[in-house]
C-alpha cells in the first residue's frame, strides 16, 4: 500500500470573517498517496487554488489540518514552512513566474542553489532536466526570449530540480496553446512515472483532465466527487 503523502483533513477556509464571510472551502477531506497524478477540477471560485495553497503551506486553513509526509504543516513556523517547501514541494504557477534576469538553466538551478547543492551536482541535475523538457538548446535564454509553453516547461523543471516529493501546479496550462499544454502534460506525466513524484494540479481544461489518473472535483468549496480514471 502506497504511503499517504498529503492528508488534508477537515479543511475549511473562510475569508472576511468579520464583514461578509466567504466560505472558500468547507470541510474538505483529501488524501493523496505518493506517486499519484491528480487533477483538481471545478469551476472558477470552487476553491481549487485555495486548497492547493493550503497543501503547499502558502495559506493557513481557518479550520482543519494539513499533513504533508507526516508533518502537520498548519502548526509550523514561517521559516520551517519555507524550508519544508524548499525540500519537499515544487510549485508551478499559472503565469510561469520565472526570475526574469536569470537564464533557463539558472532558473532551474535556483532552488538547488537555495539548498546549497554543490555546483557540479547542480549543473548535472539542471542538464538532466533541460534534456527531459527538451529545452537544452534554450538553456542560456532568459524567460523573455522563450515562448509561454517553453517558460512553463522551465517552471516545471525548476519545480522538479530538487526532486521534491510533491509538485503542486495551479492551472499550469491556463496560458498555453493546446500543443504546448499537451506537451507540458506529457512532460509532467513522464516525470511522475519515472521519478515517482506526486503531482497535484488544478485545471478546468478537459484535455488536461483526461491525462490525470485521479480527478477530484470541487464545487462551492466542497468535494463533489473523487474518481480514478485511465488517462488518455
Amino acid at each position, binding site marked *: 500500500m502506497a504511503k499517504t503523502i498529503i492528508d488534508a483533513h477537515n479543511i475549511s477556509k473562510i475569508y472576511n470573517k468579520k464583514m461578509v464571510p466567504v466560505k472558500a472551502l468547507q470541510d474538505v477531506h483529501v488524501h493523496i498517496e505518493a506517486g499519484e497524478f491528480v487533477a483538481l477540477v471545478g469551476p472558477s471560485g470552487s476553491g481549487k487554488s485555495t486548497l492547493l*495553497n493550503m497543501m*503547499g503551506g*502558502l*495559506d493557513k486553513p481557518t479550520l482543519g489540518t494539513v499533513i504533508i509526509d507526516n508533518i502537520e504543516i498548519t502548526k509550523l513556523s*514561517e*521559516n520551517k514552512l*519555507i*524550508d519544508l*517547501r*524548499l*525540500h519537499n514541494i*515544487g*510549485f508551478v*504557477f499559472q503565469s510561469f*513566474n520565472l*526570475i*526574469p*534576469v*536569470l537564464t533557463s538553466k*539558472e532558473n532551474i538551478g*535556483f*532552488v538547488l*542553489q*537555495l*539548498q546549497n547543492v554543490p555546483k557540479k551536482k547542480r549543473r548535472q541535475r539542471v542538464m538532466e532536466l533541460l534534456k527531459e523538457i527538451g529545452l537544452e538548446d534554450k538553456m542560456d535564454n532568459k524567460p523573455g526570449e522563450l515562448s509561454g509553453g517553453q517558460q512553463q516547461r522551465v517552471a516545471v523543471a*525548476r*519545480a522538479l530540480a530538487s526532486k521534491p516529493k510533491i509538485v503542486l501546479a495551479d492551472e499550469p496550462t491556463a496560458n498555453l496553446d493546446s500543443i504546448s499544454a499537451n506537451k507540458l502534460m506529457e512532460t509532467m506525466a513522464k516525470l511522475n512515472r519515472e521519478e515517482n513524484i506526486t503531482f497535484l494540479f488544478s485545471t478546468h481544461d478537459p484535455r488536461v483532465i483526461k491525462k490525470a489518473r485521479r480527478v477530484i472535483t470541487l464545487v462551492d468549496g466542497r468535494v463533489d466527487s473523487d474518481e480514478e480514471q485511465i488517462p488518455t
Partner: protein
Amino acid sequence: MFLKIAWLNIWRNKRRTLITATSVFFAVLLAILTRSVTIGVYENMIRNMVSYSSGYLQVHQKGYWEEQSIDNTFELDPELNQNLLQQPGVIQIMPRLESFALASFKDRTKGVMILGVDPQKEKTVNNLHEKIIEGRFLENEKENAVVIGEGMASYLHLNIGDSLVVLGQGYHASSAAGKYSIKGVISLGSPDLNDNIVYMPIKQTQAMYGAENRLTAISIMLKKSADLRDLKSKLEPRLDPAKYEIMTWKEMMPEIDQFIEADSTGHLIIIGILYLIISFGLFGTLLMMTFERLREFGILIAIGMKKQLLGFILLLESVMISLIGCFLGVIGASLVIRWFTKYPIYFTGELKEVYQNYGIEPIIFFSEDHQILITQTAIVMFLSVILALYPGIKIMRLKPIEAINS
C-alpha cells in the same frame, strides 16, 4: 549567484537606476568638494597662523600667557630642548622671543610685533624664505637686519636697505631700542601678520630687549596637527609644572578654533540637507523596485527562498546603486581636487578684501585628506543600508499568497 541577481535586478530598469545613481554621484561629488574646500581653507588658515606665529604647541614660562610681558621669559635650557625633540611627532622646536614695540621710519610710526627667531630653524619648517616678495630672508641669528610684513612695509613706506628704528620696553623695565636694516619684505597668509610682523634674528632681539639667552616661548612644530592633544598630554608630565606651561594653538587662539567650529557646523547642515534630498530619491527608487516586484517576491518565498535572504538581496541592490554613484562621485571629486590643488583659485577684487578683513588668505584651498572621501562614501553607504530597511521590513511582513495574487 545572489550578487549576480541583485546586480541584474538593478538594471531591469536602466533609466531609473542611472537617474538614482546620478543623484548619488552629484551628492557625493558636492559633499566631498564642499568638505574638501571647507577643511582645505581651515587647514591653510591654521597652517598660516601656526607656522608663522604660534607653532602647534608652545612652552612658556609659567604665567606668561596670563601676562604676556618680556619679564615673564625663561632661560634657554638645552635639556628642555632635548626633551621636547625626543617626542615622536615633533619635527622641530623653535626658540622665540616675542614682544611688542613701536617701529618708525621717517615721519611714520606703527605698533609692531617683534618676533625673534632662529632663521635656520624657521627655514626648515616654515619655508619663510619662500614667502619673501622683496629682498631676502634672514640667514643667521646674529645679523643686524629684519624682515617685515608687506602691509607694514607699505604703511611705513619702507624699501630694502632702509633703516627701521624700533623702540620698546625691555627686560625688567630697561629700555629697548635698535636700528635695523630692512633685509626683506614678506607676504604671509594672514593679513594681520602682514601688517604687524617684524622677524628679527633671535640674538639681536635678546640683545635689544636686554634679555640675553631668554625666550618667551619654544614653538613646537608637529608632523600633523591631529597629534596635538595627544602630544600635549604626553609632554605635560615631563615638564616642571612650577616652571613651565604648555599650550596648544587652540588654547592660544580660541577665536580661530571657535570660528572653525561655527563655520563647520553651517557646512555640515548644508551637506545634511544634500543627503536628505538624495535619501528621498534613493528611497523612491527602492520603493518602486519593491512594489513592482511584490508578486515575484511571493513566488520566490513560495519556492523556498527565506525572507531574510530576499531582504538581503534588496539591501545589496540598494548598496549597489549607491556604490555606483559613490564610486563615480569619488573619482570625479578626486580629479577636481587634484586640479585645484595644483591650480588654486585666487580671489580678486572685493571678495579678496572681504576674506582679508576676516583674516583669511583669499585663496581657495582644497584638502587632499583621504578621510573626507572615506567619510562621505561611508555616509552614503550607511544611508543606503538604512533606506533598505523599509523594503526589508515590507518583505518580512509579506504574505506569499497575497503577494502572488496581487
